[in-house]
């Protein structure tokens, strides 16, 4: 039986590793594409994963300081996904 | 405490913002405010220069934070001289811009002009190296706007390259600053001087690279070969008043070299000793040669002047690179000369451009232009100055530099390049002048079909087409030339001033003391609390340490 505090640390390590792997897999999708649709999707995923990472960072360091950063990532990730999509759909993203 | 030091920075900035906010739709009001601002700037600059002329070094702590923790401005002889030179140039060029109507050919000319001045003034006055970067960026971005003022594909194309090149330069500047901070842990120039000296000579690679990277940054600004490539097209394509004002921008680079490499990395410093001495003089000479070869090799009058700027910067750096008192005071004399001469030439070339219309500035004959004799005479005068022929200040400057180079090991090469490139410049300028101004008479004569040259009566002095007399433009040009004459006639007192300035540069202790150890500053008294607030809240901030910081952290 693993000690509970050890379990917590392990969970953190696991979470970091899983997120790192998730990011790398998304990165692979970005590289292989094949279409720009997939790449936008990969970017969108990576932004969400990055938010997860920042949250993890906050938990690991026991601080709330990164909260606004995560919030802004969420806002801006959305805006950039829409911007790329609008570019493909309409060319002019703010027409 | 005097707030005058900061006026050359804040006044143009506030004025520019005011013009953007309030009078951007009123061209005439913009002009009035712009001129009034520059005139005030000139008065303030003269006051500062006068104040510094007895060797006083004035320091200004922004935000009342002591150096090296906050940013300081420092007014010594060198910086105030540059500020004054900028103000003088700015006024004359502004008159030209208004007279020629250049300011109306695009939007926001006056705001950008004021911001440009703010950047230049800040760069001359700041005593903090990162703040210098910020002011470089201010003056650069304003220069981008001014350079592409009124648009046009050719100008935009040149502008793209100009901006891209300077983006590389700015990147390099940041690399250098990062290295300097990583090595010394400070950004204040006076503080740097002390800390660089502390660096262990056995572990000096970092600071050496930093010193060289920084020098390269300034070399870009100063258009020293082989980092001058941004200059020809951007100066040639820039609107004339802008190009004329840009005359001072290359000097910002030279100023920064003078400042940093006498204060922070002086030539006798062991850590960085013998570092740039090896190649700065050769590259300065290469720049001089390349510039003057360009004067001969170009096919366009605008580019010709641009190349002469490169040449004159090479000449200037030849003097600076010696890092001797004689060399640097010669360089300072040459700075003033070259700034005024460059500006005059760009403005005169614009008069030619305006007269030639569609014929442009390509070096070839065209029909005589209105007021051609007058413009030719002005060009001749300015070209004499630029080529360093007597009797104008270019010659005096050249003699000073030649005389100073006698002390360097490379004296013969230096002399050969200086004199040889002078000759090339003479040939280039005379060729251009005779093509642009004299050959038009032949064209006119051929048009009149006179068989024998000496009988080409009609061709000798054609009645020039009537045109508006460009009063403001001529005022500006003649003003610049008159200043050149004054610079020549008063060479004695001027060089005495420059020698004293050089002495101040070579004995930086008063500078460092003025910045780091200012007299009459009581650092124990903390000014950063308004008395009212402290009184209203006796348990408030005054006595706080960081232990109860969380209380106020809400919003």
């Amino acid at each position: 039986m693993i000690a509970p505090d050890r379990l917590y640390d392990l969970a953190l390590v696991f979470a970091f590793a899983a997120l790192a792997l998730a990011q790398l897999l998304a990165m692979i999708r970005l590289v292989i594409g094949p279409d720009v649709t997939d790449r936008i999707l990969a970017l969108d995923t990576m932004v969400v994963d990055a938010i997860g990472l920042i949250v993890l960072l906050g938990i690991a360091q026991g601080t709330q300081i990164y909260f606004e950063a995560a919030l802004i990532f969420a806002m801006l990730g959305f805006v950039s996904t829409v911007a790329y999509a609008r570019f493909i759909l309409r060319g002019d993203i703010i027409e | 405490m005097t707030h005058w030091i900061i006026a050359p920075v804040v006044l143009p900035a506030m004025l520019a913002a005011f013009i953007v906010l309030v009078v951007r739709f009123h061209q005439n009001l913009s002009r009035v405010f712009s001129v009034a601002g520059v005139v005030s700037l000139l008065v303030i600059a003269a006051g500062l220069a006068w104040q510094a002329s007895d060797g006083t070094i004035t320091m200004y702590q922004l935000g009342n934070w002591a150096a090296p923790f906050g940013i300081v401005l420092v007014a010594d002889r060198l910086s105030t001289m540059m500020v004054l030179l900028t103000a003088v140039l700015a006024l004359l060029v502004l008159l030209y811009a208004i007279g020629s109507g250049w300011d109306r050919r695009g939007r926001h000319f006056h705001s950008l002009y004021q911001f440009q001045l703010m950047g230049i003034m800040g760069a001359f006055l700041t005593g903090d190296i990162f703040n210098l970067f910020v002011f470089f960026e201010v003056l650069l971005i304003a220069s981008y706007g001014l350079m592409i003022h009124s648009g046009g594909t050719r100008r935009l194309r040149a502008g793209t390259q100009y901006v891209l090149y300077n983006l590389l330069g700015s990147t390099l500047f940041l690399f250098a600053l990062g290295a300097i901070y990583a090595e010394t842990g400070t950004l204040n120039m006076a503080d740097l001087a002390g800390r660089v000296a502390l660096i262990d000579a056995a572990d000096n690679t970092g600071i050496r690279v930093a010193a060289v990277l920084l020098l390269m940054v300034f070399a870009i600004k100063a258009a020293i070969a082989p980092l001058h490539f941004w200059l020809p097209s951007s100066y040639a394509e820039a609107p004339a008043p802008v190009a004329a004002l840009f005359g001072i921008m290359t000097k910002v680079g030279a100023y920064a070299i003078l400042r940093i490499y006498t204060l922070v990395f002086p030539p006798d410093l062991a850590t960085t000793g013998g570092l740039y001495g090896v190649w700065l003089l050769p590259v300065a000479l290469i720049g001089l040669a390349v510039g003057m070869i360009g004067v001969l090799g170009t096919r366009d009058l605008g580019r010709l002047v641009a190349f002469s700027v490169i040449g004159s910067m090479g000449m200037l750096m030849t003097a600076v690179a010696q890092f001797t008192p004689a060399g640097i005071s010669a360089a300072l004399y040459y700075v003033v000369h070259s700034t005024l001469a460059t500006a005059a030439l760009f403005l005169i070339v614009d008069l030619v451009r305006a007269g030639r219309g569609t014929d442009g500035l390509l070096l070839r004959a065209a029909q005589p232009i209105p007021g051609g004799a007058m413009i030719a005479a002005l060009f001749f005068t300015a070209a004499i100055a630029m080529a360093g022929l007597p009797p104008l200040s270019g010659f005096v400057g050249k003699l000073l530099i030649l005389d100073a180079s006698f002390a360097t090991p490379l004296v013969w090469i230096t002399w050969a390049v200086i004199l040889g490139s002078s000759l090339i410049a003479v040939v280039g300028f005379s060729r251009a002048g005779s093509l642009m101004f004299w050959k038009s008479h032949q064209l006119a004569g051929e048009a009149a079909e006179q068989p024998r040259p000496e009988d080409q009566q009609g061709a000798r002095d054609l009645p020039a087409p009537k045109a508006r007399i460009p009063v403001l433009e001529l005022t500006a040009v003649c003003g610049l030339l008159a200043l050149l004459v004054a610079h020549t006639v008063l060479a004695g007192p001027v060089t005495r001033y420059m020698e004293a300035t050089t002495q101040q540069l070579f004995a930086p202790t008063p500078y460092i003391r003025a910045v780091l150890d200012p007299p009459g500053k009581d650092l124990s008294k903390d000014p950063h609390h308004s008395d009212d607030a402290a009184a209203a809240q006796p348990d408030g901030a005054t006595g706080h340490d960081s232990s109860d910081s969380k209380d106020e952290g809400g919003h």
Partner: protein
Amino acid sequence: MSLFLVVALPFLGALLPGLLIGAGRKVCAGTTFAVSLTALVGLLSNLPALLRGEVVQARVDWLPGLGMNMNLMMDGLGAFFASLILGIGLLIIAYARSYLSRNDNMGEFFTYLLLFQGAMVGIVLSDNVLVLLVFWELTSLSSFLLIGYWKHLPEGRQGARMALTVTGMGGLAMIGGMLILGQIVGSYDLSVILQNRDLIQADPLYVPALILILLGCFTKSAQFPFHFWLPHAMAAPTPVSAYLHSATMVKAGIFLMARMWPVLSGTPEWFYIVTTAGLITMVLGAVIGLFKHDLKALLAFSTVSHLGLITMLLGTGTAFGAMAAVFHILNHATFKCALFMTAGIIDHEAHTRDIRRLGGLRHLMPVTFVIATIAALSMAGIPLFNGFLSKEMWLEETTHTVLFGPDWLVPALATFGALFSAAYSFRYIGHVFLGQQRDDYPTQPHDPPAGMWLPPAFLTVLVVLIGVMPFLAEPAVRFVTAAVLGGAATLPEAHIALWHGVTPALIMSIIAVTGGLILLALFKPLIRVWESTPRPEAKTIFEAIIAACVRLAQAVTHGLHNGAFTQYAGIFTLAIIAAAGHAWFTGQSIAPSRAAMPVHVIALAGWLMLVGATIFLVIKHRDRLLALIVMAIIGLIVSVAFAYFSAPDLAMTQISVEVVTIVLLLLALNFLPDQTPSESSPVKKLRDGIIALVGGAAATGFTYHLLMRDFVSPTISDYHLENSYKGGGGTNVVNVILVDFRGFDTFGEIIVLGIAALVIFALTEALLGGPVRARLLNRVPDKPLSGDRHPLMMVVLTRVMMPVVLMVGIYIFLRGHNLPGGGFIAGLVVAIAVVMQYMASGFAWATERQRYPYHGIIGAGVLAAGLTGIGAWFTGNEFLTSAFGYVRIPPMEKFELASAAAFDLGVFLAVLGAVMLSLESFSRLARRAQMDAPEYAMDIDPSREDAPEVSDAMRTAGMSGERGTDRQEN
């Protein structure tokens, strides 16, 4: 009269002709004459003192630091030359008054002439070699203007440029020489230099100085091999040729050799260089002169020849030679000037200077004939004319001169030259005036008005007077010679006399005159031989050299500055790598002082992603949209890295800026091609790749080096951490640094942003006002477009999200002083909120509902920040000094009020305004023809069931109705 005034008068007077030309030619010429006359009188007023044995001086400091002072002195030599310059100047002015035609700009001419005169007087009266150089170059410049005076003549322009180039080159060389002399002696004062013969001649730099100074003299005085410019300067109006190219300017080199004679002469170097050059020049000029058909060209080569003669005399280094030189300078000035004037008269009257079209003029122009004959005979060296006397002295001197071994060489060559000299002199008389009168002159010639013949007549009177009564001139010559010798040699005993008995010189003279007559008799066959002989044409060679130089300059200039940014950037990179590498490898370093941090799994993944994305970007950069997507990913990783390395503010800033940048780039990409063509060859790619990798390796190494070392001294940021709360009232130290410790940086930074927006706006205006406008309006999208510009879901979401995001922006602004955030990030967040609205319903729709001018927001932001800074002045503090305190408004808890917040508000506004103005500008570019602002927020709205498609009628109705009622009640 002070020497200053004598020198200054012509310069000051130069202003008058140009101004007075309006008052008429007579006034103009009269004024010029009066100026010269006054200067001459002023000069002569100093004669008594001079004759008393004093050296007249005038000194004023100009640039004492350099030793360049306006010191003037007049000794015999100076007085002699100055009188010559001013005296002949008077004659030239009188002559030119008649010579110049009504269509010549006389004011301009006399202005240049007086400038030249002043410069010449300056040269001969200078007591400071640097000042002398000033005047020296001024003669080059003024003569450039005078030679090119007839701007319509290509020969004039070319001649002027050639003269300027050659004499300018000499002048530049002389600068070097004079500076060396000054360095040797320790003073640039001529009177001091002249005292130091031994010092100078013993110095190792004597020879370079000598060569450099002689280069100046030879070019100015048209000595071989620089003689070729002088004939081409003959394109100038004849008064110019007479003045500059016979009497004065070309004598400046001679003058200087005479001036420096005491210190430079007497060495083998001096002797061989000067004598040889003089002798060659003398012979060459004489031979070529004979075969020239243009009167002025003949005279020009004759001048070259005579200058060679004088040079040779100075070169011998003997006192007698110097005396002969002085005497010949005087004589040559008189007869040659007169001859040029007669040539001008003939040209003026007969409208040709071609000897082949002349002849028999003696009956038509008797006065001219007499003048020309006397002067030409003097030139030929016929007794009773002054030329004979000095030529005899020269021939005498040659017999004592031994060059390169054989003692007959110099006399023989001299006789040979003298023979040709006599021949061309006779030709000038014979082929122009004698012989058959012709009926095919271009115009029927006759004697000119008195104004034109009186000046040369006056000179011929001198020719005869000196020729017959040499004792009149002898005291002056001896006086001047004494000045030349300057104590370096004693004045020779010899006297100037018509008859010295049968000397070798006399025999040589007889041979020369007889031979000259024979040569002229054989002229026809000789000219055929001459013209069939191939010989180098100096002008062609010179022009070829210049053209080659220009081509070389063009090749260098265009090769280096070829407009290729790619090349510039490559050179930039290599230069930096080289310089930094030099600094690195000449420095020393010791082992790292810090231990490396362990690598965390997430850091490794981040590194892999960053490197992977970057490489992928490089590989796929030609797909521009893909490149932008990858850029966003790199930005994302960098932001996360900032957060990871304890920089939450940076993470937030980086990601916000990233998104705004991407939006701007996407807006731009809409106009640009979607693909970058592959243009570089594999070799170029490899080259670029190698440079890039070297740069990257250098960056890696340097970064690693710095990261592994501790600070040498504690950093200043310890103070910031310590005082952020106490002195700055905030716990977010980064923000306190930004708005307080280094608020001035931030002030500059928001100005940069504001300027950026203004530039973008101004450029958009310029584009829309220019030829690009039509193209923009009629642009066809370059790819298929989808329907549904403003999707329902997005619009609905934005209605809720934008206010929330605005609130987040306000929150981030307010907390920035104590926690991550601040005005800058808040500005970007709010800007992005507005961008969301733009993306939902379109720019036009959103802008119609929003009327804050973005210019105003920028201006207000900068003013707010600046005024906050200025506010500190009123409490007696420095710009940007902050103040803060804690306020409690019951019943709320206390909160902080800081002036830094007002500054941050300025930052906020400037950032917001700048971003929005930039977006607005892009959007204006994107507006195509017939694109109207939509009436509705969303394209498809089922609740708007029976509303027809967007139509103009509805549009108008909608506009007139209550704005915003875009849905029927249902």
